C-alpha cells in the first residue's frame, strides 16, 4: 500500500530550482484507476492526475489541431492508413527507463485487450503496430479515420517493463502508476488526495509549479468554502455558484464556451414523436433564450443542432425555432391535436402527454425542465419529469423504456456522433438515410475542411428534421486563484498545459 511518501518541505527534489507553493485543485470526483489504460483523459478535474502523469504521442491543441508530445514528428502515408511516429530520444519514464517504440506497441495492444477493461477509443481501426527502431513506430490502419490521430494519439503511453504479463484489470499499477508525464505520483490517500511532484528534468522542460495536489471534497458547498479559505486554487463551478464565487477575493472565474450541450431526446417508437410538426411545436413551446438568460445567468447559449460554437465543426447556418407559443399551437392543431377538457391536447382519445427522464444529479437541467414543463402546459402539452438514479436512467435508455430523455451530450475530441444518430441507435432510434451516409463519410475523410462541410450539413439536416429538441449549452466555469497565471482554455482538457501554470499575476 502506498501511503503519503514524503512530508511537505522535504519533498521538493534537490535538483528543483526553488521550492514553490503547491497548487491544490478541488474535485468532487475521485478517479478510479490512475492508469492511462483506463480511459482517455477528458476535461473533468478527475482526469487531471492522468493528464499530468502520462504523456501521449500527440497533444490535442486548443484550436482542435494536433501538436507534438512524445512524438516529435510524424508522416502520414497510403491515403491516411499508415502513420509513422518519431519519438523524442530523451523521453523517460519516471523510473528512468527510456520511452521507446516498444512501449507504444505494448500500450496499443494493452488498451485493446478486453482483460484490461480499457477503452479503446481512437484505436478501433489499428491493424498492426510495428517497431522500426527504438525511436520509430509505424501504425497500419484498416481504413483511414480522423479519430486515430486525435483520439488514438492522445492515449497515454504505459511502461511495458512494469506491465508485461500482468493482470491489467487489477494490477497495483492502477493505483501507483509510472508514466512519462511532467509530474510523477508521490502520494495517494483514497477519498482524500493525490499528490504529484514535478519531474525537474522532463524532456519537454521542467513544470513551473513543483507540486500539484488533487483534493477530493464531498460537495460543492465545501468547494466554495475551501476556495474562500484559499485552501484550493482551482475548482469547477456551476452557474448557481457564481453569485458566491464572484465575491471571493483572490479568485477569478474563467468562462469557456463548451462543446457539450443538453437536449430532449424523443423516443421515435412513440407515434406522436414521429410527426415532425409535434416535435417542432414542442421545441417552439420552450423559451430556451429565457432559460439561458435566467437559469444560467447568461453563461451559455441556445443550441440549434448537435454542435456548439466551441466546436471547430460548428455550422451557425441551420434552421432555428425560436420561442413562439402561437406557432406551436397552430402546428399542433394542424397535426390534429386539439385542446381537451383540461387544456391538454388530445387526438383520437389520446392525450398529448409524455414523460421525460433526467438523472437526479443534473440539477440545473432539472430546473430547466421544470420551466419547460410550465411553458408546454400553456400550449396544451403535458410533460412529466422523472428523476432517476444514473444506473436506472442508463438501463432504461438501453432498453428503450422511455418517452423522452434529457441529458448532456459531450462530443469531445471529435464532432462525430454516429453512435447517437445512425439508424438502429439506442438513443431514441432516430433514422435518416441521408444522415447515415454523411456520418459514414465523415469518418473516412481526414482533411479538416471537407469534414467541416460534412458535419455542417449533418447539423443542418438534424435541425431541419427536429431530430432532437436541442436545448442549451452551459459555458464551463473554472474558478482559478488570481495569482495563478498561464491557465489557457482548451475544448477537451483544461489541464493540458498545467506545467506552464505559474505563481504570479
Amino acid at each position: 500500500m502506498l501511503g503519503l511518501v514524503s512530508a511537505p518541505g522535504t519533498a521538493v527534489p534537490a535538483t528543483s530550482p526553488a521550492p514553490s507553493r503547491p497548487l491544490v485543485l478541488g474535485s468532487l470526483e475521485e478517479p478510479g484507476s490512475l492508469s492511462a489504460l483506463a480511459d482517455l483523459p477528458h476535461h473533468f478535474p478527475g482526469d487531471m492526475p492522468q493528464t499530468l502523469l502520462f504523456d501521449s504521442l500527440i497533444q490535442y491543441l486548443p484550436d482542435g489541431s494536433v501538436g507534438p508530445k512524445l512524438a516529435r514528428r510524424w508522416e502520414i502515408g497510403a491515403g491516411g492508413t499508415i502513420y509513422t511516429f518519431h519519438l523524442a530520444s530523451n523521453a523517460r519514464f519516471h523510473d528512468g527507463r527510456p520511452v521507446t517504440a516498444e512501449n507504444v506497441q505494448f500500450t496499443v495492444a494493452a488498451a485493446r485487450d478486453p482483460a484490461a477493461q480499457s477503452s479503446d477509443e481512437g484505436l478501433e481501426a489499428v491493424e498492426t503496430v510495428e517497431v522500426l527502431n527504438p525511436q520509430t513506430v509505424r501504425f497500419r490502419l484498416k481504413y483511414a479515420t480522423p479519430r486515430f490521430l486525435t483520439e488514438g494519439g492522445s492515449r497515454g503511453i504505459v511502461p511495458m517493463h512494469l506491465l508485461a504479463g500482468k493482470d491489467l484489470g487489477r494490477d497495483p499499477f492502477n493505483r501507483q502508476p509510472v508514466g512519462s508525464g511532467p509530474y510523477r505520483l508521490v502520494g495517494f490517500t483514497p477519498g482524500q488526495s493525490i499528490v504529484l511532484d514535478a519531474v525537474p528534468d522532463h524532456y519537454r522542460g521542467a513544470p513551473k509549479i513543483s507540486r500539484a495536489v488533487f483534493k477530493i471534497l464531498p460537495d460543492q458547498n465545501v468547494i466554495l468554502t475551501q476556495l474562500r479559505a484559499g485552501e484550493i486554487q482551482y475548482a469547477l463551478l456551476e452557474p448557481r455558484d457564481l453569485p458566491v464565487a464572484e465575491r471571493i477575493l483572490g479568485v477569478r472565474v474563467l468562462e469557456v464556451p463548451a462543446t457539450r450541450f443538453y437536449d430532449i431526446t424523443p423516443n421515435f417508437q412513440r407515434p406522436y414523436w414521429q410527426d415532425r410538426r409535434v416535435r417542432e411545436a414542442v421545441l417552439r413551446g420552450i423559451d430556451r433564450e429565457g432559460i439561458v438568460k435566467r437559469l444560467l445567468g447568461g453563461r451559455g447559449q441556445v443550441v440549434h443542432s448537435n454542435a456548439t460554437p466551441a466546436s471547430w465543426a460548428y455550422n451557425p447556418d441551420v434552421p432555428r425555432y425560436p420561442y413562439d407559443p402561437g406557432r406551436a399551437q397552430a402546428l399542433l392543431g394542424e397535426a390534429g391535436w386539439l385542446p381537451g377538457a383540461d387544456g391538454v391536447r388530445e387526438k383520437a382519445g389520446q392525450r398529448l402527454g409524455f414523460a421525460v427522464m433526467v438523472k437526479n444529479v443534473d440539477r440545473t437541467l432539472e430546473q430547466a425542465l421544470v420551466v419547460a414543463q410550465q411553458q408546454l402546459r400553456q400550449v396544451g402539452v403535458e410533460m412529466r419529469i422523472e428523476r432517476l438514479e444514473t444506473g436506472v436512467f442508463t438501463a432504461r435508455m438501453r432498453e428503450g423504456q422511455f418517452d423522452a430523455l434529457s441529458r448532456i451530450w459531450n462530443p469531445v475530441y471529435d464532432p462525430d456522433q454516429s453512435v447517437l444518430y445512425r439508424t438502429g441507435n439506442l438513443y431514441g432510434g432516430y433514422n435518416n438515410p441521408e444522415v447515415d451516409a454523411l456520418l459514414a463519410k465523415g469518418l473516412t475523410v481526414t482533411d479538416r475542411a471537407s469534414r467541416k462541410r460534412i458535419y455542417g450539413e449533418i447539423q443542418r439536416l438534424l435541425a431541419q428534421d427536429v431530430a432532437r429538441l436541442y436545448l442549451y449549452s452551459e459555458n464551463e466555469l473554472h474558478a482559478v486563484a488570481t495569482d495563478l497565471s498561464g491557465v489557457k482554455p482548451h475544448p477537451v482538457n483544461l489541464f493540458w498545459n498545467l506545467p506552464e501554470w505559474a505563481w504570479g499575476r
Partner: protein
Amino acid sequence: MRRVVEVTLTLGALILAVFLVLRLAPGGPAQLLLGPDRFTPELEERVNHTLGLDRSLPEQVVRWVRAVCAGELGTSYFHRRPASQVVLERLGATLILGGLAFGLSLVVGLSVGVLAAARQGSWVDRLLSHGAVAVIATPSFWLGIGLILLGSVWLGILPSAGLAPIGQEGDLGARLRYLILPVLTMAASHAASLALYTRSALLEVLASDFVRTARAMGTSARRILWRHALSAAAVPIITMAALNLAHFLEGSIVVETVFGWPGIGQLTTASVARRDYPVLLVISLWAGIVVVTANLMADLLTRLVDPREAEE
C-alpha cells in the same frame, strides 16, 4: 461448535441476499464503466463477458463463493484493483471514527443514564431524559450539518470535512481536530439511546426486592447503585450496546457522506452508484462479520457478568 455453524450459515445467507439484491437493481456496471456516450450493445457484451456478468446468476454465485473460499474476493470494476484491497484501505478510517464514537457513546451514555436514574424525578433527570429524547429524534445528517455550521462556518475553529490536512497525515493533533465533529455526530444518538436504556434498566432494578432489603440493611445508596444495581442491570445494557455496534455501520454511511470522511460508509454509497458489485460484496461480508462478532462478544460478556446465563 453449534455457534460456528450458525455463524457460517448466517453469513452465507447474508451474502446470497446481497448478491441477489444487487442484481435486482436496474442498470449494470458495463453501462456505467463504458460511459454514456460510447454505448453500443457490442461494447456492453464485451465488458460483461470480461466481468463474467454474461453467465447465469446461479453460476455467478457459485463462482463467487468458490473464489471466496479460495481467499479471492474479486476485482473492483471501478478501481481496477482487488476489491479487498480497496475496502481495506478505507477500513482504518471507519474503525477510528466508529471506535472513538462507540467509546464516547458508552462513557457518556452510561454516565448520563446512571446520573438520571440516581436522581429520578429531579430536574436533572428531566433535563437529561428530555435532552436524550430530543437527540434521538434528530437525524444524524441534520445534526452533522448543524455542527458544521456551528464549528466551521460560524466559529471557524474546526475543519468541516476530510481526514486530515493534506501533507500532515502523520500529525496526531491535526488529525484529532478533524475527528471532533464526525465523532460527536456519530456518538450522539447512540449515547442518548444508551442513556435512556440504562436509566430504565437501573430504575427497574432499584425498585426490586433485593435493593429494598439492601437499603433496609443500611447499605449506602452509592454502594447499592454502583455495586448491586448496576451489575444486575448489566445484561440488558451490554446487549443494547452490542446492538448499537451494528447500527454504527449504518450510521457511518450518513456521517461519512456528510463529513467527506473517506471510510467504508462513503465507499458504500459511491459503489452502489457505480454498481461495483465486488466491492459491495466485500463490504457486506465485512459488515456481517462485525455484527456477528459483536453479538458473540456480547454473549460471552453476559456470561461473564451473569453466570446464570451460561447454564441455560
